[in-house]
């Protein structure tokens, strides 16, 4: 693969961005005086900033590149990850869960679990979350180092260390506010960096109709109906009819319900952005504000992958998508001798193919920004959970605020250092990383059942929640161990306990693992709760739906009420689904 070369103008754009990122950190340093400022951005962030940060915290570079890769693999059906797998959950967390997260004044999601249930439920969530954020941030660094090495010939160590140093500098100085501000900056960079890519790409393939016609050939050559890559719903009747390899029920329940609600409604990385909002109304509006750009993002991040398949002048395996190289730099072939395409390079190759000098600098800066804000988001979530949920709870209980602020800064440094170690571990021991991510998936799958029961059924007990979580995680592991996607070998892909059934695709297996974990957790939590002693109503005030005053919106003009926003978001999402059905 030919490497791209950056011109002076490209480096100039990058340098301007770095200067701004560091400058924001330095300016914000002056307004950080207390733990509340550092960990919660002083609970002073307006809804539009919190909303864009809520969206961007999830929009790391792996998301940008991964969605392009999925666009190339699955076509427009990838938009289900947004329209089914994000929007409904974002509406739910805004309307129904934020009153408890924000209203309880909990400083983190694990702390809400402590208030609602007990210490052990908090501990299991806090520990798994803290470990997970450090590894996610490390994996993000690793992916960045690898990509820029392949694409631009940059030294792996240099890109990891420079980006880590910049992230460390601005999160250390400005804490969560810094992280949030840079996420908003990244949002606009991604929009301005990718919109021209999509416009140029679409123009070169003859617009949407041209793209449809060209992808119809790709589709039929793989044995699908001509529209399988450009219609999101029409081929979801059976797993064998669409390139995703899933039928509508598994998609809606697995992705749309369990996985998506589990992520958007319980993951502290995103919820922290809404907790930093300046009022209850702003906190509830945060995910709803985020939903508007979220529903349009498929056009920015998925279309490049689809265009890469059919762009003219490509020298890849399919269109612009090059052949996969293994860790030693050798080309990878299937058992039948066919070249394997590296879909993760679909979007980066699009940037290199369509952008002249200058624009390429903008595109690369947008990618860099999303890698770095992905790390920063994880680091700021890590330092909060470490300081409040682990250090303050188990190591040093009654220190003055200044001590915890100091500890937060120490945790920031340690978090970045651990991420660097994780990045190197990922480059040496790829299998360990895959295994860890699998374990995290098991731990996360049942979470939403715990939160939903905790918030909406006051009878739920701490013992019930804890037992349900453990049982759900075990159920996920057992289900994964007993099933296998077709044409995979037993091992990390599943089947390590013996193969009972096979699924048509990895995704189908993932979705069903999640469904099994959620259901197990739900049932076990209810059963154990019924035989253990519930807490007094008075202790659950503000933590459970039936014992909390409804948030008052009547003083707001109807146009500004969260419910109105939610209905508009729902209607627009429905229209998008109909257009691309």
């Amino acid at each position: 693969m030919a490497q791209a070369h950056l011109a002076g103008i490209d480096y100039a754009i990058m340098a301007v961005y770095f200067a701004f990122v560091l400058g924001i950190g330095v300016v914000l340093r002056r307004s950080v005086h207390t733990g509340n400022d550092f960990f919660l951005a002083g609970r002073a962030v307006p809804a539009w900033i919190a909303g864009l940060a809520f969206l961007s915290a999830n929009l790391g570079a792996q998301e940008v590149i991964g969605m392009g890769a999925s666009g190339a693999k699955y076509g427009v059906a990838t938009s289900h990850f947004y329209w089914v797998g994000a929007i409904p959950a974002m509406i739910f967390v805004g309307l129904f869960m934020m009153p408890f997260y924000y209203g309880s004044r909990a400083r983190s999601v694990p702390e809400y679990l402590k208030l609602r249930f007990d210490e052990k439920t908090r501990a299991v969530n806090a520990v798994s979350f803290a470990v997970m954020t450090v590894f996610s941030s490390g994996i993000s660094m690793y992916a960045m180092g690898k990509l820029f090495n392949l694409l631009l010939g940059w030294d792996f160590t240099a890109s990891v260390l420079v980006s880590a140093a910049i992230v460390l500098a601005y999160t250390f100085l400005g804490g969560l506010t810094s992280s949030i501000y840079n996420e908003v900056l990244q949002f606009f960079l991604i929009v301005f960096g990718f919109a021209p890519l999509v416009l140029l790409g679409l123009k070169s393939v003859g617009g949407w109709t041209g793209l449809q016609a060209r992808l119809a050939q790709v589709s039929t050559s793989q044995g699908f109906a001509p529209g399988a890559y450009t219609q999101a719903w029409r081929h979801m009747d059976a797993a064998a009819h669409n390139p995703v390899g899933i039928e509508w029920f598994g998609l809606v329940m697995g992705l749309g319900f369990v996985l998506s609600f589990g992520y958007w409604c319980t993951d502290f990385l995103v919820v922290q952005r809404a907790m930093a909002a300046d009022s209850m109304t702003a906190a509830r509006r945060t995910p709803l504000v985020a939903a508007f750009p979220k529903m349009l993002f498929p056009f920015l991040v998925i279309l490049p992958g689809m265009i890469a398949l059919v762009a003219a002048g490509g020298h890849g395996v399919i269109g612009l998508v090059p052949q996969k190289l293994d860790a030693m730099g050798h080309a990878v072939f299937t058992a039948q001798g066919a070249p394997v395409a590296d879909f993760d390079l679909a979007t980066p190759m699009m940037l290199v193919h369509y952008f002249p000098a200058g624009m390429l600098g903008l595109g690369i800066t947008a990618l860099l920004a999303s890698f770095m804000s992905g790390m920063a988001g994880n680091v700021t979530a890590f330092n909060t959970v470490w300081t409040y949920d682990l250090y303050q709870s188990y190591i040093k209980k009654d220190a003055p605020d200044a001590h915890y602020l100091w500890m937060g800064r120490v945790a920031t440094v340690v978090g970045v250092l651990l991420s660097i170690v994780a990045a190197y571990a990922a480059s040496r021991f790829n299998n360990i990383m895959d295994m860890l991510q699998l374990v995290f998936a098991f731990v996360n799958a049942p979470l939403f059942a715990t939160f939903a029961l905790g918030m909406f059924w006051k009878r739920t007990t701490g013992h019930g929640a804890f037992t349900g979580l453990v049982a759900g995680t075990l159920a996920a592991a057992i289900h994964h161990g007993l099933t296998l996607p077709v044409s995979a070998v037993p091992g990390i892909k599943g089947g390590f306990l013996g193969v009972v059934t096979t699924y048509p695709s990895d995704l189908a297996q993932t979705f069903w693992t999640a469904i099994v974990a959620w259901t197990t957790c739900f049932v076990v939590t209810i059963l154990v709760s019924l035989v253990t002693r519930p807490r007094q109503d008075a202790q659950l005030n503000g933590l459970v739906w039936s014992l909390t005053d409804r948030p008052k919106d009547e003083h707001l003009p109807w146009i500004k009420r969260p419910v109105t926003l939610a209905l508009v978001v729902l209607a627009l999402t429905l229209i998008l689904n109909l257009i691309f059905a």
Partner: protein
Amino acid sequence: MGLDLRLPIGALFLIIGLLLAGYGWMTAGMEVDRWWGLVMVVFGLVMVTLARRGRSKV
């Protein structure tokens, strides 16, 4: 909060836009840079204006 975020966003896009557009004018065959640079300049100006208006209100 000490810093109106619209100001740095506006300034960043203004500077990058000027760099891009300037580069586009000086180099042959760089229409994309030229026009997209201008779009970014306009966005940057709008953000800076909003920030200045917002401050005078407070």
